[in-house]
């Protein structure tokens, strides 16, 4: 609750400071401090110290799971601000507004992860989406950015329509918007229910860019300014996943046999398309767009399995995926050449940056002793205990394919001759090192995060 209100206030503050104060360093300072403050407030709320008590009539539920995920989101955004805030300045003239929009997105994230009513879910997703359309098109002079924004807006509006339709049908079937109060016949749900559930499934799949609803993703991620791609592909995607898992756990959990097969098909298709297409990309940015589809495929395993391991795992997965991808994008945003060749010989020019990027890619690939491994480990464990072995084997084979494209960057940096270099400050380097350390620490001691889930 605290985070929701204060981040909305911070958004407004940023909006006005963008007009009143013209100095970029000052705006940046407010944003970073504000985000750090939000993180602290959220930690306080986890330790049950809260400033506001507002009766939401059961439409919002701030349980451990939601609060912990908020902590992951806020920490990642803080890291994102520290690493990439300078690059936002290059995008366009409206520096303050970019921060304001991100704070509003955080509001939407909080709504999506703690909704108890389908209306709040809808509201949250819209609050996330509309600022994102703007951020995607924020590079106004760039045709690709415009195209991406328009494409995203049209497709997004369409999927929102589907979602509303689904909510309406579910309301018709159950007579309530409250996800916890819904009663369904477990063995043979009504046609209205199934239709509504499928519409919701499709629109959520669209939002997390699961196949076959992923077609917008590469173009939008590629066209958007790289700094904002970083934010969209990580924090926003993970947040919608939490909403997804909550929706299917709390609302539709009672007839999971009906939708498990659907999810399995979507999972397998997403894993396949994401990984196989990523292999053929020539640009690292586009490869990361497909990699985000592939990672979404792995996260879908949590919804497929839907047990306690899956819920723990998705927390860990979001943290691992967000931190590693934000780290890579932060470096990418500072480079001029996005092709794989652009990374040639970076190990010689910038040994430390090359090492840190390697750690991030190893984590994304799921090599042990990184957070990415444990995240995948949880997903496989969850899917194995309440799903089919073949889905798990398929996921594992696709994880092996992912090594193919992640390691191409490592090969370029270490084993190929070239002059790739990036201009980074010492502060940036050490922040990145802290993020990499966090990735390894989470891989060694998952308790650092999961402890809070239980106590």
């Amino acid at each position, binding site marked *: 609750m605290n985070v929701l209100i204060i981040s909305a206030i911070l958004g407004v503050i940023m909006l006005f400071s963008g007009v009143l104060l013209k100095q970029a360093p000052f705006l940046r300072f407010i944003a970073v401090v504000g985000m750090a403050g939000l993180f602290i407030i959220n930690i306080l709320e986890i330790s049950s110290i809260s400033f506001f008590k507002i009766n939401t009539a059961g439409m919002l539920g701030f349980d451990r799971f939601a609060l912990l995920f908020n902590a992951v989101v806020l920490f990642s955004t803080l890291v994102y601000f520290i690493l990439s805030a300078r690059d936002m300045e290059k995008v366009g003239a409206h520096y303050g507004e970019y921060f304001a929009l991100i704070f509003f997105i955080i509001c939407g994230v909080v709504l999506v992860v703690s909704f108890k009513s389908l209306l709040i879910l809808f509201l949250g997703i819209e609050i996330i989406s509309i600022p994102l359309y703007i951020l995607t098109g924020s590079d106004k002079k760039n045709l690709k950015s415009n195209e991406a924004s328009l494409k995203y807006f049209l497709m997004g509006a369409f999927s929102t329509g589907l979602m509303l339709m689904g909510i309406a049908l579910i309301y018709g079937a159950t007579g309530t918007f409250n996800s916890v109060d819904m009663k369904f016949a477990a063995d043979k749900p009504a046609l209205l229910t199934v239709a509504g559930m499928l519409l919701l499934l499709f629109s959520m799949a669209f939002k997390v860019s699961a196949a076959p609803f992923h077609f917008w993703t590469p173009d939008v991620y590629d066209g958007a300014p790289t700094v904002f791609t970083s934010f969209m592909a990580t924090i926003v995607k993970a947040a919608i996943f939490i909403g997804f898992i909550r929706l299917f756990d709390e609302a539709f959990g009672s007839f999971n046999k009906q939708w498990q097969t659907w999810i399995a098909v979507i999972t397998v298709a997403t894993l396949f398309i994401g990984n196989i297409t990523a292999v053929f990309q020539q640009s690292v940015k586009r490869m990361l767009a497909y990699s985000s589809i592939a990672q979404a495929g792995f996260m879908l395993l949590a919804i497929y399995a839907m047990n306690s391991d899956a819920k723990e795992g998705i927390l860990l997965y979001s943290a691992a995926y967000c931190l590693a991808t934000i780290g890579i994008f932060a470096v990418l945003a500072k480079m001029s050449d996005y092709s794989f060749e652009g990374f040639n010989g970076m190990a010689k020019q910038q040994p430390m940056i090359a090492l840190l990027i390697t750690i991030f890619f*190893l984590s994304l690939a799921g090599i042990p002793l990184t957070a990415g491994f444990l995240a995948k480990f949880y997903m496989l464990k969850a899917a194995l205990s309440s799903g089919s072995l073949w889905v*798990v084997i398929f996921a*594992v084979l696709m994880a*092996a394919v992912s090594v193919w494209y992640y*390691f191409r960057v490592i090969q370029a940096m270490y*084993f190929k001759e070239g002059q790739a270099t990036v201009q980074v400050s010492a502060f940036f380097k050490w922040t990145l090192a802290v993020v990499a350390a966090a990735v390894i620490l989470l891989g060694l*001691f998952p*308790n650092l995060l999961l402890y809070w889930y239980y106590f």
Partner: protein
Amino acid sequence: MIPVLLILIPLLTGLATFFIRNEKAIRSFILVVSIVVLVISLVGIIFFRDTRLMEHHSAFMTVLGSSLSLRLDGMGQLLCLLTAIAFVLIFLSSWDSLFRYKKANNFFALMMLSQAGLMGVFLAMDALLFYFFWELALIPVYFLCSQWGGERRIAVTFKFFIYTFVGSLLMLIGILYVAGHNPDQSFSIDSFYKAKLSFKEQSWLFWLFFIAFAIKMPVFPFHTWQPDTYEQSPTPVTMILSGVMVKMGLLGVIRWLLPLFPAAANNWATLISTLCIVGIIYASLIAMRQDDLKRLIAYSSIAHIGLMCLAVFAHNTIGLQGVMLQMFNHGINIIGLWILVEMIEKRFGTRKMSELGGLAQKNPSMAIFFVLIALGNIALPLTNAFIGEFMMFNGIFSSNVYDGNYTIFGTIRLNANSFATVYTICAGLGIILAAVYTLNMIRKVFYGETVTAIAGAKDIRRYERLALLMIVIMILGIGIYPQAVLNITNDVTDSILKISDLVKDLKK
């Protein structure tokens, strides 16, 4: 205590070495450290009765049901000793040539990290920990090969990496499944042994594990990465790969596969033994046609490993003891061969047999060492490999795990006993072929007409001589008194066979 030291010393040394800039100092530092590790592993063998020294348990990832438990059992002692010896030999033999590698500190650091990973694999008594070390041993080797290898190194090493990664991920599924289906829901090896798995579960779990191990060994048809990788890697890394790393696969089969899925192992023994036999003959035939020394030895290694895998699945004491002994012998012998190949390549700039000849005239001591080690490789009596292979043949011949009644051409009937006979004969054929290509190699390289390229060649240097002398002493020493090694692994062999026998009846 000792297991922790065996992992920590190389690990910390490796991490520290990244930051040492003085190249001359690194060389001595690393040699000293590897000798210290060797001494510790010897201490481990001497004080094997003191269980406090041999075990370590501490909390690690308790939320997942895993813990940091290490134990130095007989097989671990032997393989840790092999690892420690191998690294000393590698550093000694390439003492003068190590500066050919640019950024020597990174090279040494990665070598030490891979040693830590290997030690961990041999010591881990917890499935998740085992998996961690299994991967950790691979990553430094990947970087070593890709950075310092031959011309085609990037593509070849990548193939190797993807291959092993697929295998280990499949194994991860298996590990997860068994961890979820044992009474304690834990990853420790004792709980794994207690898991009650039906025959059907065992059958598919077996393959998830076996593919990982088969790729690592490698067993036909999972071997295609191996010759290229051995050829393209820098020779010190090839020594690690062939001398020590392939034993990870064998150890996996012996420690994790047989006791966990005995009924399935029994059931699939015939199929896998047939694959091994095909691999032995096929690799030996290809080895005969090779011109490149490195590729020849690589293929010969496939044949040798195939024989060991065959003997593991024979599932009796003498066969398993033979494998234990032979794991050690094969490591020593093949490292000896690589050292000599490296010397030849360094001096004459080529590994092609067609461009070499008559080396014995200018390099008599090199020729003597080469012949001695090559004789070990083809298992002549009084060499170490003879004992090992003799025991393995004995095990295969007396094995009763092969099943099925087949009739070929309507006249020849095969039953369990005749299978054992056929396998023994085919494996024996592999030995004969080994003699053919090894002796052929000696003839072409060391005798015959002297090639002009070798005119100004120098004979062996001091450190190389030391390393080769150690190898020859071990070859002959074990050949004459193998009991010393067999005593180490006696208990392990018995306990593994006992564990797997207990559950074997499930099949019936």
